């Protein structure tokens, strides 16, 4: 009997969290800052919804979603991860849209200790380590690999490769000066412009585009679709542009 108030409290807590819809958005690590702003703006327009953001390398998000993680929206940093999600029937393909474009850049720690000026320059022996995302699970790493393969540099650069778990870790390695250079997205480099210098824009064989889709079996499919609409709307684009993302 003495437990009754406690049980009532528990029920109250449970109902309280269920009343506001928790919309779980799994987004690529490179979207971290932009989607935090997008999420806030969306919540301001939809007071009943609470946007819960989950950031990691796109393939990690894909693994989570295809193993049944309760995500509602998936935004990845390349088409390969989204293609895999579609193949695994993890997303509602009819909702798939591209919402942003980005670029790959070569960055060096502030002051450029190894005097790197281009991807070619990474061959020099003073360049001992180069950071980029693990191509097996990080889109930024896949773009890097494809670009360097096209230039015939992959073999020499990958021998010096430090594989990051996501693009932001590669950025951090460069900012700390633990590596002589690294490959990240232009938007990532911009965030740490006081600690890293962009030395070259790197052409990628496929353009860096970001797809978004509603997760198959989402319990908040309508809300998820509304969030997606907001991301691709003029207002959403404007927020993304602040962080350096271009229209697709």
């Amino acid at each position, binding site marked *: 009997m003495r437990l009754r108030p406690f049980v009532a409290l528990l029920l109250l807590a449970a109902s309280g969290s269920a009343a506001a819809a928790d919309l779980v958005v799994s987004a690529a690590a490179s979207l971290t800052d932009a989607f935090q702003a997008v999420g806030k703006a969306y919540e301001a327009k939809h007071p009943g919804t609470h946007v819960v953001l989950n950031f990691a*390398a796109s*393939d*990690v998000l*894909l*693994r989570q979603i295809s193993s049944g993680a309760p995500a509602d929206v998936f935004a990845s940093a390349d088409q390969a991860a989204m293609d895999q999600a579609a193949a695994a029937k993890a997303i509602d393909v009819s909702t798939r849209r591209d919402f942003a474009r980005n670029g790959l850049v070569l960055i060096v720690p502030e002051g450029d200790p190894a005097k790197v000026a281009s991807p070619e320059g990474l061959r020099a022996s003073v360049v001992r*380590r180069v950071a980029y995302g*693990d191509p*097996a*699970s990080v889109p930024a790493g896949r773009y890097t690999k494809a670009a360097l393969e096209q230039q015939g540099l992959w073999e020499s650069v990958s021998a010096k*490769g*430090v*594989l*990051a*778990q996501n693009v932001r870790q590669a950025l951090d*390695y460069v900012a*700390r*000066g*633990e*590596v002589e250079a690294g490959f990240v997205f232009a938007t990532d480099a911009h965030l740490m412009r006081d600690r890293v210098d962009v030395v070259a824009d790197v052409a990628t064989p496929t353009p860096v585009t970001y797809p978004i889709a509603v997760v198959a079996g989402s319990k908040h499919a309508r809300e998820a679709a509304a969030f997606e609409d907001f991301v691709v709307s003029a207002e959403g684009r404007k927020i993304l542009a602040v962080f350096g993302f271009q229209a697709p």
Partner: protein
Amino acid sequence: MPLALTLKVALWATAINLVLGVAVAFGLARWRSPAREVVDSVLTLPLVLPPTVLGYYLLVLFGRRGVFGEWLDRLGIELVFTWQGAVAASTLVAFPLVQKAARAAFEAVDPQLEDAARVLGLREASVFFRVCLPLAARGITAGALLAFARALGEFGATLMIAGNLPGRTQTLSVAIYAAVQAGDDRTAGVMVAVISVTCVAALLLAGWLAPGHLRRVRP
């Protein structure tokens, strides 16, 4: 390849801890001061702190632009993205396991035996190497095996300081993490089995050597 590297790192970490942990433990066991338990608590921190915190400490202290970065650089020592960095991480997390076990073992040595050795004319160093160390050896070995098992599985701090460099710093646990992230469940499964079996073997051996075991089996 990840297995060989993992064994190399764990063996080095255990060897360093055997010297360092035993020396510190002996000092603590013989030191009479109220500060003793404070020092002991600080030294036990690696056991309870999140490995990411330990990795962060290592990175901030020993990174190229870290507090001791320049100093290490002049000595030609590089820890970030090297297997030596993985050894540093494993040594740090496993240190309390050796230190704790060794201290308990030293404190269990009967002081009368040490006194007897001194009366018989042994110098302090000889008392340590011929009386204390042999009597405490069992407990120390058990601690070392636990430390070895812990070092085998070290992940968080290792990933932060040694990174993920296939063939150079990619230990089993880091390789497993990378394989799972890439969706390569088969490779991950094989490595998970290997590390599980190795750790169980080390733990069994540690349990068999642990002090008290002989008393349990002997009537």
